[in-house]
């Protein structure tokens, strides 16, 4: 009997369940999709040389999934709570018929299980199919090899999804039982009649609060943009976040009263069509929705900021990549090894004679003598990089060292500065296509493109003619700032400092810290290049690597291919987690808004009936409804957009050097498209649902 009742109930209230159901299905599908990544063929294909990053990504996704599960759990409890409230009267009738609270709980329990099971199954099916498309999307997006397509089913993801959602449903059940146990029959039966007391706010107070909130937000915006460099400690950031939250809540507290006041004074707009009614509706309802509006706004804000800045980060990384990897291969080898040395942890290292011998010859020599055919390389340039024991970072900063140490206490100030002769550098720069420099006999140039390092170095250089003692002679800086440039390739701008000195500088062979070699593979096609690459990366078949390894030679290197692969992996990871979180936040906020509006529409049914009775035609009524819901969806979106404009700027300034504003536009467009689709879908679903609710049968 109870079974039948709950089944019938569900069928009856299918319209109410619509959005709840949609949210559950979407939640399950997305949860599955992102957790099934580990078993996707396409992902494994990319990863021959970067399994570690993929592994890291899967681990991170697992942690993020716990967070996501908490959000979804809260969302489901919330949505469910709305449904229960809608049916208070029904429960009241059951109770007058003599049904106990336990039995009512049981009905709801059965319903939760029904809906849960169905949505889980449908969600999983959608998730499984969608994840196939996602593998294609992923491989396209991240230049992965997608040579063969296979239908992937991840058992672990499936089980994980089921377990997580089962836990959420149990939470919902516990919550429901608790809610039901608190109900009193009289309240249940009268719930429909209970009229919401209309609280009207003092309009003057509204305006004052609104202005206050605007100032507060403006101050927070100023803090994160113009004043961002002062935002360097956790509690300062927390302050700004708190300001943002309080400002947002206050804006929603006062906004409707403020707007109402403004529009009321514009008689022409106020006294037109149903404007008056719509405004009053909003003013009436927003009082009860301040908290949820604020939460929705902040969630939208997070979605926008996370999506935009992570996509920008990814784009920057990929663009930087091309700029930062001008040649196929970089090799470097420590020069002039001493007999013994102590490493950082204080352990003594003794170098063999063979190692020391090798450290006195060029990289080319090492390669050839270990069986490498130099004809496989072209455009070979090899240079020594020197250091002067007396010239460390500490020395470079000179008098300003204390100030800089206070600001950046964790830098290794005893690191020696790297020195390169100008003609050597120019050879490399020519090969890379970078700017070449000329120096007078007493000049030097500081090359540095790592943002924070560049900033503190400029601090010293800006005074002009900054003198530096190099190898016993004093030189002065040619420029009042760091110049950009690099020698060793990397994924982004990470050159912390190289000093270019005139060729005449007294740098002895013993001062050489390492040899550096840059070259291109002597090949045309990608396949040929990959073949040469194998000699440096493939562990088993490469004789040169085996030799270097056995003799313990200090030869190391980087290749364009490996840098790009690693970078693609990193970018993939960041983007994935961002998209995952972003979409979950988006679904959560849209669903909350939609549910709220739907419940309100049924409360408002009577008001719309009155409108109809006094002669509004359907078109006008639909227009009024559309505008009412539109404004409710629009308000948090607009405020969130304004927040994001500043939030993204701050996010980019934190990621400075890694993400750049140039890449913002496409990622903002992508974000807008994604948001428009999900948010818009919920908006339309809400509008249509509400229209259905206020429709009168005999009309």
């Amino acid at each position, binding site marked *: 009997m109870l079974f039948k009742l709950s089944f019938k109930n569900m069928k009856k209230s299918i319209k109410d369940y619509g959005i709840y159901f949609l949210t559950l299905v979407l939640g399950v599908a997305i949860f599955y999709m992102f957790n099934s990544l580990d078993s996707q063929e396409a992902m494994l294909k990319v990863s021959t040389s970067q399994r570690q990053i993929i592994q890291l990504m899967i681990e991170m996704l697992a942690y993020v999934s716990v967070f996501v599960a908490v959000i979804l759990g809260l969302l489901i409890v919330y949505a469910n709570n709305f449904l229960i409230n809608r049916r208070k009267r029904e429960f009241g009738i059951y109770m007058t018929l003599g049904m106990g609270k336990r039995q009512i709980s049981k009905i709801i329990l059965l319903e939760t299980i029904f809906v849960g099971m169905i949505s889980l199954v449908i969600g999983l099916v959608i998730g499984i199919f969608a994840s196939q498309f996602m593998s294609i999307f992923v491989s396209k997006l991240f230049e992965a090899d997608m040579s063969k397509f296979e239908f992937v089913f991840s058992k672990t993801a499936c089980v994980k999804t089921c377990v997580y959602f089962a836990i959420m449903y149990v939470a919902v059940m516990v919550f429901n039982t608790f809610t039901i146990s608190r109900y009193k029959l009289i309240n249940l039966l009268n719930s429909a009649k209970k009229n919401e007391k209309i609280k009207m706010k003092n309009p003057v107070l509204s305006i004052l609060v609104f202005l206050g909130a605007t100032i507060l937000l403006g101050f927070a915006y100023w803090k994160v943009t113009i004043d961002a460099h002062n935002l360097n400690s956790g509690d300062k950031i927390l302050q700004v976040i708190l300001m943002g939250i309080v400002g947002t809540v206050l804006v929603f507290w006062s906004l409707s009263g403020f707007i109402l006041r403004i529009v009321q004074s514009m008689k022409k707009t*106020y006294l037109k069509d149903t404007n008056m009614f719509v405004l009053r509706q909003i003013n009436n309802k927003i009082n009860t929705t301040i908290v949820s509006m604020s939460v929705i706004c902040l969630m939208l804000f997070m979605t926008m900021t996370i999506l935009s800045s992570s996509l920008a980060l990814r784009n920057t990384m990929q663009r930087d990549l091309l700029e930062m990897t001008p040649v196929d291969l970089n090799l470097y080898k420590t020069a002039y090894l001493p007999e013994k040395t102590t490493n950082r942890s204080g352990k003594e290292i003794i170098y063999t004679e063979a190692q020391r011998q090798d450290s006195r010859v060029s990289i080319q020599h090492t390669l050839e003598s270990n069986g490498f055919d130099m004809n496989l390389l072209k455009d070979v340039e090899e240079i020594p990089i020197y250091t002067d024991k007396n010239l460390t970072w500490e020395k470079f900063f000179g008098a300003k060292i204390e100030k800089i140490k206070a600001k950046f206490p964790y830098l290794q100030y005893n690191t020696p500065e790297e020195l390169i002769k100008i003609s050597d550098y120019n050879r490399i720069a020519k090969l890379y296509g970078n700017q070449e420099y000329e120096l007078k006999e007493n000049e030097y140039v500081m090359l540095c493109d790592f943002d924070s390092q560049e900033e503190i170095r400029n601090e010293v250089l800006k005074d002009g003619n900054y003198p530096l003692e190099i190898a016993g002679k004093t030189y002065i800086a040619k420029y009042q700032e760091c110049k950009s440039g690099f020698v060793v390739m990397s994924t982004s701008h990470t050159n912390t400092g190289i000093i270019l000195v005139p060729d005449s500088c007294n740098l002895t062979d013993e001062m050489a810290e390492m040899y550096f070699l840059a070259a291109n593979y002597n090949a045309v096609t990608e396949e040929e290049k990959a073949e040469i690459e194998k000699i440096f990366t493939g562990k088993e078949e490469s004789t040169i690597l085996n030799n270097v390894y056995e003799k313990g030679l200090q030869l190391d290197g980087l290749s364009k291919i490996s840098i790009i692969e690693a970078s693609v992996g990193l970018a993939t990871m960041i983007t994935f987690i961002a998209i995952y979180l972003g979409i979950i936040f988006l679904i959560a906020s849209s669903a909350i808004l939609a549910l709220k509006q739907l419940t309100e529409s049924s409360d408002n049914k009577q008001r719309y009936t009155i*409108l109809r009775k006094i002669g509004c035609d359907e078109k006008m009524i639909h227009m009024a409804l559309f505008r009412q819901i539109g404004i409710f969806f629009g308000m948090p979106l607009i405020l969130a957009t304004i927040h994001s404009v500043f939030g993204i700027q701050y996010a980019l300034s934190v990621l400075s050097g890694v993400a750049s504003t140039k890449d913002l536009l496409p990622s903002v467009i992508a974000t807008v498209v994604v948001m428009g689709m999900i948010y818009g879908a919920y908006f339309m679903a809400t509008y249509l649902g509400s229209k259905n609710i206020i429709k009168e049968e005999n009309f």
Partner: protein
Amino acid sequence: MNCLSTIDRVTAGHIIINQQDITKLKGNQLNKFRREELGFIFQDFNLLDTLTAYENIALALTIQRVPENEIDAKVKNVAEKLGITSILNKYPYQVSGGQKQRIASCRAIITNPKMILADEPTGALDSKAARQLLESFESLNQKLGSTILMVTHDAFTASYAERIIFIKDGKIFNELVKGIDTRKQFFEKIIEVQTLLGGDLNDVI
């Protein structure tokens, strides 16, 4: 009443108001007719609780797209006639039942309808408020010349009318016209008819 007010449709027959057969109107034509030719007063007021009295009245005009510079004068004018000028800025929940019904009446008449349909307008009012309202109706009828069609079970309320049609079980039972009678005489006539209306002999066993 619902058929007359075009809220419901007739299954047979015709309703002719002002030489127009309203049973033949459809959809938005109906809405237009209702908006422009009829005014409604309901037992439970049907005021929008989110709007002030002023706005409730003005809404009837704004949905007819009356220019906004005419609205203010019209609302104040009609409010004065029904004596609710002082409560125009109050919300429905802040005023008494009688005042609410007068606000509703203002809303009904502000559009100068051909006919005002009043469905048990005094049903939710106490006798004092009912009398005030009925007196306002009377003046509306006499001064503005609007036709008021009122449905009621109350003989006292009915005695304010000029012409009464008794309906029993869906059929017209009797008709009374006030003519030159005073209201007291008319009231007594109504009571007589009501006694007759009470039932056939067969009903009392």
